[in-house]
């Protein structure tokens, strides 16, 4: 497939934002159970939510560049019964709304006790909003991943590993960002967040490697024989019916060489996983510069990872477009 930068930015930016929100609420939950020191709610949760919202808005903005008619984008919410894309279009703004309210509750230090848990733990609006946001964050990961994983023709995507990767890679980049952010606003949480970022990065590395391993052993279900229905082992396309390009030759081919593809694979394995892992290990003791660097390098790595995710998928329609004349 031809990797579209609008979609690459959309998926990586909102993935990081979802991860960041999950990191914020994880820290809040731990702090509520007195497992972590209580950070400055206004600075850490409030500003952290603003950061997550900015990333979500940037991702949403990028997605509009993918559309031929952005002014009709509102229509995309209508087919949520059948279309994962439609579901994403509904869940993304809902998640943004909850993140906004969650951030607002912390920003205004609005913590009235609504009820208490059996253990005597007070429940305030931010806790309820946090739970709702967590559910929506995972729902959004699921929707985004299922847009690709539900297409059975694209065998490289049609796997539970796609969903696992979107959750783990989004989570990893979000927790790394949270660790870098905490080094300025809540230094007492850096070790905790960087630790979880490292765990998620390692888990993402394993699951992405598993999908790479799976994808290079796939056997295409469709062949030229089934594509044109001629049962002969040797079929060669002589012309695709036109000499200029078409949508079919642009949208479904990345047009890059094998060498570049392979180097991008090694780049993202290093930049999205191994380098950030090492830097997180160093930054766990506290080091704002190292963590910021880890966050930046991991994001660049994830851009390459997403590019490769699209480029590697081989669409069966390409069988019909193998030779110009």
């Amino acid at each position, binding site marked *: *497939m031809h990797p579209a930068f609008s979609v690459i930015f959309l998926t990586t930016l909102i993935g990081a934002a979802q991860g960041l929100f999950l990191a914020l609420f994880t820290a809040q939950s731990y702090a509520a159970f007195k497992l972590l020191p209580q950070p400055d709610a206004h600075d850490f949760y409030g500003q952290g939510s603003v950061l997550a919202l900015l990333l979500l808005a940037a991702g949403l903005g990028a997605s509009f560049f*993918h*559309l*031929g*008619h*952005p002014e*009709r*984008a509102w*229509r*995309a*919410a*209508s*087919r949520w019964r*059948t*279309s*994962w*894309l*439609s579901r994403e*279009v509904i869940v993304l703004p809902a998640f943004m709304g909850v993140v906004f309210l969650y951030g607002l509750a912390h920003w205004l230090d609005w913590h009235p006790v609504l009820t208490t848990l059996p253990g005597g733990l007070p429940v305030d609006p931010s806790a309820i909003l946090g739970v709702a946001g967590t559910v929506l964050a995972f729902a959004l990961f699921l929707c985004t991943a299922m*847009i690709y994983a*539900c*297409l*059975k*023709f*694209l065998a490289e995507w049609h796997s539970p590993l796609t969903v696992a990767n979107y959750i783990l890679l989004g989570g990893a980049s979000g927790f790394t960002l949270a660790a870098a952010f905490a080094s300025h606003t809540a230094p007492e949480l850096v070790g905790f967040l960087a630790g979880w970022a490292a765990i998620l990065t390692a888990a993402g590395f394993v699951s992405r490697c598993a999908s790479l391993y799976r994808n290079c052993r796939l056997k295409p*279900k*469709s062949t*030229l024989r*089934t*594509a*044109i*229905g*001629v049962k*002969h082992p*040797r*079929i*060669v*396309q*002589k*012309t*695709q*019916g*036109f000499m*200029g*390009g*078409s*949508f*079919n030759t642009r*949208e*479904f081919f990345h047009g890059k060489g094998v060498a570049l593809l392979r180097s991008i694979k090694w780049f993202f394995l290093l930049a999205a996983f191994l380098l950030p892992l090492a830097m997180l290990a160093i930054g766990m003791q506290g080091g704002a510069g190292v963590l910021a660097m880890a966050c930046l390098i991991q994001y660049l790595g994830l851009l390459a990872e997403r590019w490769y995710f699209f480029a590697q998928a081989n*669409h*069966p*329609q*390409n069988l*019909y*477009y193998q030779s110009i004349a």
Partner: protein
Amino acid sequence: MTQLALVIDLNVCVGCHACVTSCKEWNTSGGAGTMGDQNPYGADPTGTFFNRVQTFEVGEFPNTETVHFPKSCLHCEEPPCVPVCPTGASYKRKEDGIVLVDYDKCIGCKYCSWACPYGARELDEQQRVMKKCTLCVDRIYDMTMAPEDRKPSCVKACPTSARLFGDVHDPASEVSVAIRESGGYALMPEWGTHPANHYLPRRKTRIKIHEDELERADNPLKVDRQLPKPAMAEPTLDDVTTW
């Protein structure tokens, strides 16, 4: 229930592209807007087409066979492109099974084209919406046309009658008979899309001539040669008798 479709006879198609050009001509002139071309007279022309004719070579030289292969939307009975559409712009008509795109609802997200294994959908760069074969839905129900003209434009254009059009759910229709009796098949059956369009395979053309066909069965005495040979100026026997 009606399912309109094309049946394309690969044994007859000569790869002349008449269906491609007539499709473009009809559909670019319709009320739904043009099928845009970019750079049509430049070095790298491109544009929107609903129908393509491709050519494949089967076998190894010298035992090769050339297969011309017209390809357009197959109007699947289980169209994978329809449920993925986030706006409902892509839909399958209940009354005749045609898969259509509502150009006023399409947001141009291209997701349906990813979900079609046949590459039947093309994004129109000019209108920024997804387009595909409509089975000339604006022709086949046009009561101002003569009944024999109420067929898709490609079918009308085919000089070898390689394209048949009809209801594949009606067992007595021309297309159903062709599918049943000439080995009609669907493309990429492995995906369960159940394409409505079918293709008829290439066939070996053999003539079996029996001994008695070489001789005149009505001439048991074998006296043909003894018939009087007319003079050059005279009318021949063929001119004056009806045999």
